[in-house]
């Protein structure tokens, strides 16, 4: 009897991502008919795309038991640079390439501080969070940069009837998923996340792998920023701030462990990001009291972290029992 319950509990833990997602989906669908509509699902997907892309990059970093707090600033700096360029007549294509370039460069900067100077990722990326924000403010004179019409038009463009942000999201998630599951590099990321020292002993180029994940994260953050910009049509001085927390929340909600070595982009992180966005969307659609938003979002994040630590404990317990079986 007791084991039945605990087994059910374990099942629930293993699939907590989907369970939480379903609860949110069902609750809001019952509360409001508008929520359960194709158009709304597409909206949620579009709105979640930027977050999901940033969280995808974050997943790589979290898998190595690292953290990147600077993603919001990467979005901002990349956005300001490209916005300024487009403003002064550079073509859209070039600007987009520059955005990605800025993201990669930023990630490289993080990685170099972390692995050349051996500063822990938390501190390095915390510092670059503020440096980046400051640099972006300096570049933009703390003024909102309004983007030209053609920038906004990519945001609402469609390819084969599919909105542009969803296409970008699809491409990023697919590539990331394949890299993590089908390439040598991807599998080595998991090994490094489990135990960096063991990975070194196993002959893996640990530094190169760690360097790569921060570059990938920077690149994803820049692309995520681009997708957000194309929808917003403007970059305010607060653009991207707090994205790091939402991205980490999305990844962890999707089953990625803060302890490293566990997690996946698809479906995990993608579902995590969609869940968070569906929650926000649902609250607006049912016109909830504005004071409820932080309460509910906070509770969900608390729940996520709780589940992560339960999962972690459960794994340790299972390992012990395996010895006997």
């Amino acid at each position, binding site marked *: 009897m007791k084991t039945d319950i605990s087994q059910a509990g374990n099942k629930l833990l293993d699939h907590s991502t989907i369970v939480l997602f379903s609860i949110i989906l069902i609750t809001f669908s019952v509360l409001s008919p508008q929520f359960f509509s194709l*158009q709304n699902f597409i909206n949620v997907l579009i709105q979640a795309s930027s977050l999901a892309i940033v969280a995808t990059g974050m997943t790589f970093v979290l898998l190595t038991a690292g953290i990147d707090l600077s993603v919001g600033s990467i979005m901002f700096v990349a956005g300001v640079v490209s916005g300024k360029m487009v403003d002064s007549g550079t073509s859209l294509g070039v600007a987009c390439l520059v955005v990605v370039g800025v993201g990669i460069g930023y990630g490289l900067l993080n990685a170099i501080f972390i692995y050349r100077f051996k500063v822990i990722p938390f501190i390095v990326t915390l510092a670059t*969070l503020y440096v980046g924000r400051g640099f972006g403010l300096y570049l933009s004179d703390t*003024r909102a940069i309004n983007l030209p019409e053609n920038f906004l038009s990519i945001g609402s463009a469609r390819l084969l009837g599919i909105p542009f942000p969803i296409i970008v999201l699809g491409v990023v998630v697919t590539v990331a998923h394949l890299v993590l599951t089908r390439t040598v590099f991807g599998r080595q990321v998991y090994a490094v996340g489990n135990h960096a020292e063991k990975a070194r002993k196993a002959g893996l180029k640990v530094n190169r792998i760690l360097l790569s994940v921060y570059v990938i994260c920077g690149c994803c953050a820049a692309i995520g920023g681009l997708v957000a910009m194309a929808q*917003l049509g*403007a970059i*305010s001085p607060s653009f991207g701030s*707090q994205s790091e927390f939402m991205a980490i929340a999305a990844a962890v909600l999707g089953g990625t462990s803060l302890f490293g070595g566990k997690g996946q982009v698809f479906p995990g992180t993608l579902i995590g990001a969609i869940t968070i966005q569906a929650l*926000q969307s649902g609250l607006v659609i049912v*016109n909830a009291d504005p004071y409820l938003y932080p309460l509910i979002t906070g509770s969900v994040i608390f729940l996520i972290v709780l589940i992560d630590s339960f999962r972690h404990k459960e794994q340790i317990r299972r390992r012990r029992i395996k010895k006997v079986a």
Partner: protein
Amino acid sequence: MKVNNNISLRLKRTVLTLLMAGSLLRCAPPDTGVTIGISFETLQTEYWVASIEAIKAACEDNNIQYLEAVANGDANRQFEQVNNFISRGVDGIVIAPKDAHTIIPVIKAANRAHIPIVIYNRLPAQNQGDYVTVVADNYEITKRTVRNMCELAKASGQTYQAMILIGDLGDINAVNRRKGFNDAIAEYPEVIELVAEVPTEWNQEKALAGVTNALQANPDINFIFSSSDFLFPSLVSALKNADKYHPIGHEKHVLLGGFDGDATAYQMLVNGYLDADGVQDVYYECAAAVQAILKKQQGEPVDELIIDPGFVIHQDNLDERADKMWGANISTPTP
């Protein structure tokens, strides 16, 4: 997200102390023998930038020297910067404080040194000590702006479904603007029905998503007030996607109102998309702040609370009032 905010604030303090180790102190030209210190919590919004520029301009008009310092969101840093002003013997201090509580010790320090202090844009949490506050009447300005919109609505003979974009509810200004909005539409129950309140936490992405979702849930929304002009790009973007962004006079035009008076709002007024905007009279406030210091210096009586009545700018008074609108005087590209 409040939790995260707190974490980020605490981290911010640690890191900023490192990053901002070098002070941003700087000196400016001529002399009348009077020097004031200008301390700003942050320059992270256009509004703050316009304000500090206006104060400096007011100083220059009066031939006053000034020192400026920016605390980058760090209350301790701001306190030190003010102490620095005091030890350098300034004749007055104008401060845009980090928040309503951390300003109290700053006031005490200035009072001990017998240096007049003017608090810009935020009311201190306790009424203690000797100081002058210059604030815009967020509630009143919003109420008048929304009332203006409601009159337009009433004149059209239609009924309206209204939406408001709310700011960070931890910010008293955001709360007052929400209250002003609610009280104004309550005067027109037969014309306006409030169907959506979208919290934005002063975040553009949240605003975009929130507006999109609210329009999804209530496709007939045709009356929108944004608690700050800086959310307009998000609002406009969402409206365009829903085919609801059309100039005044178009049959699908949505009544739009905002608050602040920034450059984007000015352009939208000029282009005929925005119906009304509540403007904080930055020039009035800054001139009043500098005047208050001069008067205090000469021992003349000054009101403890200087309220900026602000004004509502709309299509009918655009030409006469534009030069008072701070956003009309900074260059920002057209959206």
